[in-house]
């Protein structure tokens, strides 16, 4: 009896270890979990389609998708599709992103430009660029021009918004510092504003380039014989789920690649961040 009572009283001679309650809420790098999720998911689908529990109309067999992919590779068709798509992506996104960064910086720097362009950008941002594709075809022709234009236009607006936001967020005290040391306007822009806006510009690029990949498929809706987007659309209209998924996987890989490239760029350019 006496012993139980003693055990109930914490301030007795027996010390109690403080309970740890500070865990969680801190992201850790656990790359294998992502891989495991993929493996389990694909394994499940393979098992489901093999056993007929998932019908052929619902999902293709992952192994068939892989076979399609291998065939695509071996026949050389993969590069026949990849090459025009990558060209469109690179040229379109480069045009859109560089115009977007330039415009964003101008908006960030000049009040008149801001007053004039911000409403315009806000007005064109929500337009589904796909809806304008027929118009682009008339303006830029059914060949590569309209495809570059669509991708460029689609990457342009998010880049503008991200860039002027980033310029706005550059620490004003650094700009004041530059002025107080008598730095010229162009020096302030080149040496303070642009590097200071770089983190925001790069994270904006992440989104813009993902949008560029999305628009690649849209751009290849009109008049493209070759290209990953054309391949996916064709597979879709043929209900060829294996090819459809093989194409989608290529797009996903492209997305991962672009994101990794930006990650690399961030590592190189933004090493100064705390």
């Amino acid at each position, binding site marked *: 009896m006496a012993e139980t009572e003693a055990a109930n009283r914490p301030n007795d001679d027996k010390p109690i270890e403080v309970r740890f309650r500070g865990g969680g809420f801190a992201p850790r790098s656990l790359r294998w979990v992502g891989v495991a999720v993929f493996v389990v998911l694909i394994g499940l689908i393979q098992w489901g389609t093999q056993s007929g529990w998932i*019908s*052929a*109309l619902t999902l293709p067999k992952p192994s068939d998708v892989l076979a399609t992919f291998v065939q695509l590779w071996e026949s050389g068709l993969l590069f026949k599709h990849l090459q025009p798509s990558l060209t469109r992506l690179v040229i379109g996104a480069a045009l859109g992103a560089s115009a977007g960064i330039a415009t964003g910086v101008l908006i960030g720097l000049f009040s008149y430009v801001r007053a004039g362009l911000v409403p315009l950008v806000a007005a064109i941002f929500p337009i589904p660029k796909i809806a304008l594709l*027929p118009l682009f*075809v*008339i303006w830029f*022709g*059914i060949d590569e021009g309209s495809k570059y234009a669509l991708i460029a236009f689609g990457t342009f607006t998010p880049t503008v918004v991200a860039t002027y936001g980033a310029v706005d967020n550059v620490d004003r005290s650094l700009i004041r510092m530059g002025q107080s040391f008598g730095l010229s306007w162009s020096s302030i822009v080149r040496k303070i504003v642009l590097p200071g806006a770089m983190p925001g510009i790069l994270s904006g690029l992440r989104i813009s380039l993902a949008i560029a990949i999305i628009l690649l498929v849209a751009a290849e*809706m*009109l*008049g*493209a*014989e070759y290209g990953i987007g*054309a391949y996916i*659309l*064709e597979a879709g*209209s*043929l*209900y*060829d789920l294996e090819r459809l998924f093989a194409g989608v996987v290529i797009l996903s890989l492209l997305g991962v690649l672009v994101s990794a490239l930006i990650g690399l760029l961030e590592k190189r350019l933004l090493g100064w961040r705390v």
Partner: protein
Amino acid sequence: MRLNRRQTLGLMGAAAATTLAAPAIAQNRKIVVGALRFTSHSGSFIALERGYFNDAGLDVELKFFQAAQPMAVAIASGDVDYAVTAVSGGLISLADKGAIKVIGGALSEEDGIDGQKILASDAAFKAGLTSPSQLGGKTFGMSTAGSSFHYMGSKVAQAEGVEMSFKPLQKVGAIIGALKSGQIDAWSIVPHIAKPLAGSGAVHIIGNISDYLPGYQVTTVFTSAKNASDERGQTEDFLAGFGKGVSDYNSTMIDKAGGDDGVNEMVDLIHKYVYTDRPREKAAPSIINGTMRINEGARLNVASLKDQLEWFQSEDLVGKDITLDTLVDGSYVEIYEG
């Protein structure tokens, strides 16, 4: 009992009909029929308006689609029971997956009746594209690879011994725009679209598909594989009602059995579904121009289907191991080789 207009018309139609086939099963089974707002779908419109489906013991709801592709998917998913559409790679692919079956024929090319036209853009025409034999090196519009446009264009090129490149443009509207602005050189399309385009001078008719594909089975009646195998009665009833609608259409619009009055009455009926955004007097010429014979009794030209299947296979658009039996259930209608 409250009657709406459609039911009233149905009753009137029933009263007018001379002999009625006895419904195979209980009255008023609900089914959904998919349709596009094209003249070529008139069989379904007439059967519904004149109560032929009701007579067959079916309570039909029409469901309208913007394009053939989603309609085929809706059949595969069971949201729609029966529909009419062109044979395409997608349709064959769905059949291969055990989702759908072709059970009858609808639109086909026929001697003596205006069929699908081969069109050239004004620019290409002026540059010398005045007959299909000059199509070599030209661009030909199509909705997607594996569409009926792709098939027609390929067949024409094959027959002429030339090579063309095909531009996928997804939608008919986009193809028309590209053709008018000279972004593509040529295309083929049903007469009721071809004629007004040619009339405006923006494009030129340079040939007929029927010269290259006589007896081409353009559209077919299809349903889910499950309906075809398990719902025999219902499927027969549908085809019976649909067939009567088709009969009325052919006799009135092509054979002119009812004279001009008959045509006018039929135009009124079809105008409820087609070109509804235009006034009657503007819609009428298009409806009349668009007249093509729909197969009596939904009979099916399997020779044409076989040719189409083989072409899709040769282009590697569908699996090589697909047989005609996978695509067609020939047990419902008369099949022929034309």
